[in-house]
């Protein structure tokens, strides 16, 4: 590990930023992000494999299932068995993962999202599959068992590619949305054969039968999100225009006890038709509303509401923000890019959320880049972004990335990165950014139901600076995570936090210390320290 680290540091010193970027960053010097690949040394050995039915998918779930505070990993395998890895990384040290039989080993898995479905305090997990989806009950100590029958969950038989979960107001059980792709039995004319997405709504003690969300347009990413801060999340759906006819991006209104209703042009919904593949969300513009980054091919969108939350009339400001992942930024291959998982996280702890985009060719598409590097778009003080993937060391252009997760695997306050590649080994990088800023990582808890407070908003204030993020479960590309919620604090260690809980309860502003904090509704904030 030492040689790659040294090489990366040398690259950092001499190669980043470029002349043009240097000029852009000069007034506001920021810590330069740096990642070191530790795939082999960490023990994370796994591949997502498959042909046509696995051109999409390839997800990873990051979550703690043995209560040690460290995020363990579950990786989808496609035609290969999926795999679970226990996180044994020492705090502040190199990454270390150990494969462990968990009950989650099965084939045809496209993606996974962790969720405490039965609110028993033990994390469960939902597996998306080509075939029957599975809800797996956490038994403790990272063991799982199929709970479909017990929970009344009809896994169906489809090509499932997207997931989102929420707790509707008053519900004792989560509502789960599953995004489905095309009818895989159609060979010569698969176009226009998008199968229905499903809404598994909460019943009294289990799930109701799945409700088809008509029309469905081949979703590759879905997300329950409170787009207008009304207190009631809606379902944002990003669809792949390759296969739908008459389709577009979608936003479903979900009011408790009422059937889902699709927002339309009459509501102000602006029609958008892209190769939608992944959703990332964060309030980047600082208007108090979630913004959405959408991955696609040769293009990407960054959607904001310039006229406020009254109507879902989104504008695309990707280009003006520098939030584009349209073509490779390094190497000789200049063909258009293909974007998949996207996630906002502050990788250098400067107090500004950055954007990671996983990239990779669909499958021998000659008009798109084969050598397609992952993006790491660093936010600058002026709110625009600049590419840093090459010098940060996680570009990995020779692999076709799909799903990913950014999480602090070694609890050193720096967000690390795991990426699932199609038909080649998954990769993991340790974040070794030097001179990174202060940080706070928070964990929310509240009494059942919804013990992890899915749907809460967390706000961190430092003087005039205010960061907001929604505690959602969904989006990305077939990849979900639970656990520490990360905020970079920059050079100022002092910060205040406020949680707006899913039921609308608003906490007062309270000071938090840098480091790990557990915030339980109605209780004092507790500092968390890794048990020896």
């Amino acid at each position, binding site marked *: 590990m030492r040689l790659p680290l040294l090489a990366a540091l040398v690259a950092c010193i001499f190669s980043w930023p470029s002349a043009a970027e240097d000029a852009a960053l000069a007034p506001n010097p920021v810590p330069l992000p740096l990642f070191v690949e530790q795939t082999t040394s960490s023990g994370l050995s796994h591949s997502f494999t498959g*042909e*046509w039915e696995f*051109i999409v998918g390839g997800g990873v779930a990051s979550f703690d299932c043995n209560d040690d505070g460290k995020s363990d990993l579950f990786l989808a395998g496609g035609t290969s068995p999926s795999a679970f890895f226990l996180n044994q990384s020492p705090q502040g040290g190199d990454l270390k993962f150990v494969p462990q039989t968990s009950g989650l080993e099965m084939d045809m898995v496209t993606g996974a999202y962790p969720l405490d479905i039965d609110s028993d305090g033990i994390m469960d997990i939902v597996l998306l599959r080509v075939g029957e989806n599975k809800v797996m009950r956490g038994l403790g100590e990272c063991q799982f068992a199929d709970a479909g029958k017990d929970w009344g969950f009809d896994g169906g038989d489809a090509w499932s590619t997207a997931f989102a979960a929420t707790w509707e107001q008053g519900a004792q059980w989560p509502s789960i949305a599953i995004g489905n792709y095309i009818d895989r039995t159609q*060979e*010569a*004319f*698969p*176009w*226009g054969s998008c199968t229905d997405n499903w809404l598994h709504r909460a019943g009294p003690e289990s799930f109701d039968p799945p409700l088809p969300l008509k029309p469905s347009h081949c979703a590759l990413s879905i997300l329950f999100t409170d787009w207008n801060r009304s207190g009631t999340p809606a379902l944002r759906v990003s669809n792949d*225009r*390759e*296969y739908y*006819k*008459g389709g577009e991006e979608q936003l479903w209104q979900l009011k408790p006890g009422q059937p889902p209703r699709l927002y339309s042009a009459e509501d102000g919904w602006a029609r958008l*038709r892209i190769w939608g593949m992944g959703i990332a969300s964060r309030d980047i513009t600082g208007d108090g509303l979630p913004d959405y980054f959408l991955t696609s*091919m*040769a*293009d990407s969108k960054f959607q904001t509401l310039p006229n406020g939350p009254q109507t879902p009339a989104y504008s*695309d*400001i*990707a*280009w*003006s923000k520098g939030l*584009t992942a*349209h*073509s490779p930024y390094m190497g000789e291959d*200049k*063909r*258009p890019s293909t974007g998949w998982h996207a996630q906002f996280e502050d990788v250098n702890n400067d107090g500004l959320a950055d954007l990671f985009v996983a990239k990779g060719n*669909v*499958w*021998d*598409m*000659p*008009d*798109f880049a084969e050598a397609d590097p992952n993006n790491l778009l660093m936010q600058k003080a002026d709110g625009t972004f600049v590419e840093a993937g090459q010098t940060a060391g996680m570009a990995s252009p020779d692999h076709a990335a799909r799903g990913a997760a950014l999480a602090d695997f070694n609890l050193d306050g720096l967000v690390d990165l795991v990426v699932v590649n199609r038909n080649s080994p998954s990769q993991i990088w340790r974040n070794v950014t030097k001179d990174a800023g202060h940080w706070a990582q928070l964990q929310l808890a509240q009494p059942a139901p919804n013990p992890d407070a899915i749907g809460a908003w967390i706000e961190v204030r430092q003087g005039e600076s205010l960061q907001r993020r929604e505690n959602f479960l969904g989006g990305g590309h077939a990849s979900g995570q639970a656990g520490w919620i990360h905020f970079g604090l920059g050079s100022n260690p002092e910060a205040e936090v406020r949680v707006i809980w899913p039921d609308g309860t608003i906490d007062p502003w309270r000071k938090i210390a840098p480091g790990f904090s557990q915030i339980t509704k109605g209780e004092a904030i507790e500092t968390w320290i890794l048990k020896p």
Partner: protein
Amino acid sequence: MAISATALVVWTRPLAIQCFSAALIFDNDQVWNGPLDLEGHLMTVCFRWLRSALIVVATLSFSPAHAADPQQVLTQWYRLVLELVRHTPTYSPPVASRSFAYIGIAVWEVTASGTRGLQSLSGQLNAMPAPPARPEGSYDEAVVLQAALSAAVQDFFGNTGPTGQRAIAAMARTQHKIVVAGLAPDVVARSEAYGKAVAAHVVAWSAGDGGALVENMGFPYEYTLQDGPAHWVSTSAIRQQQVPLLPGWGKNRPLAMPSGASCPLPAPPDYSEDPASAFYAEAKEVLDVAAALTDEQKLIARFWSDDPMLSPTPPGHWISIALQILARDKAGIAASAEILARLGIAVSDSFIACWDSKYQYDLLRPVTYIRRLMDPAFQPLLITPPFPEYPSGHSTQSGAAAAVLTEFFGQDFAFTDATHVDDGLPARDYPSFDAAASEAALSRLYGGIHFRAAIDRGLDQGRCIGAYVAALKMKDD
């Protein structure tokens, strides 16, 4: 296989009369590739004919009846081609038009070579070499066509994605199974070899026209915009579209017209920001129309929007119209092949001519002018395409398509267009091809993406191209 039925008729009638009649009947439908000379070698012909008939009857005794219809082969492959155009990322309208042309020509060449009274387009289309001759022997026209289409589609859509590749393979497999059923292996082999040879011939010829290689989805990696307020600037927030699409397409080798500049247009109204100018008036018309769009006008704009990646594109829309009419009227393979070839050539030459004019005048789009001078918040109904404005490509190619179809089917030929029913847009009825072309052209005004001059003169340009295509001689006198 027409020869099978004919052979059975021959078998039941007095030999001399039937031999002569059968030869005539046979010659009307299928060219015999042996030494046919009715005047000098009637007996030889009769002998060979009877031998063939006997072979066929013998074959029928041991094989299932063969009923593959070339028309069905054509219909299935074109259905797939329309989907592939929609789902292949490089397939902007100009690129799509080119493939429609060459695939149509390949279909025509295999059909004409097997049908008496039809002529090759070689010698009429620019730089097109003579197609391969049919080696002596029996052919099955459905197998020939299947082989030609399979090879041509695989080539022209070789860059489509994994789902398209899977679909092409499935179509080839399915159609092959259908057409070869009951046929003698040597007939299948000979027919397939010939179909592939014609496809290869057309593909090789097409490679030198300037349009075979499309990089970065048609957007140049380097391009310098012209200075000046009249000239095109990007109207898109997509980074790839900050430069215009396919700026060199107008220099491609056309098919029926001599060059891309063969159907020139007068200049658009002089650029002016003076409210009293003709140019300002054209922009004002776009703004006013957009402000008062009726539901019907919105429907028209969307019906003819024909966006790449979301539809079969404008040229595919007209191919779809032709296919619907051919199916409705149960047209035979010869008529279908002629229409698809002429229409493909017309739309392909249209995009070359139109692009030649677009980059000659390099005019800005209405949205640019209107936001600059009239209404900063102007939002056209349709997404403004990423290339210069004058003339309207849809207008040019619709004018040409209507000219070709009118030439074939006649004036006041009513039809229903259900191209976009799958996308939720209802079918529309038209009293004539010209009416449909005019509506397609006007849809660009409703959509807020073209000025009036680009629409009217685009139609004129299309008619000019249509005349070149109409002059192609495809049948014997």
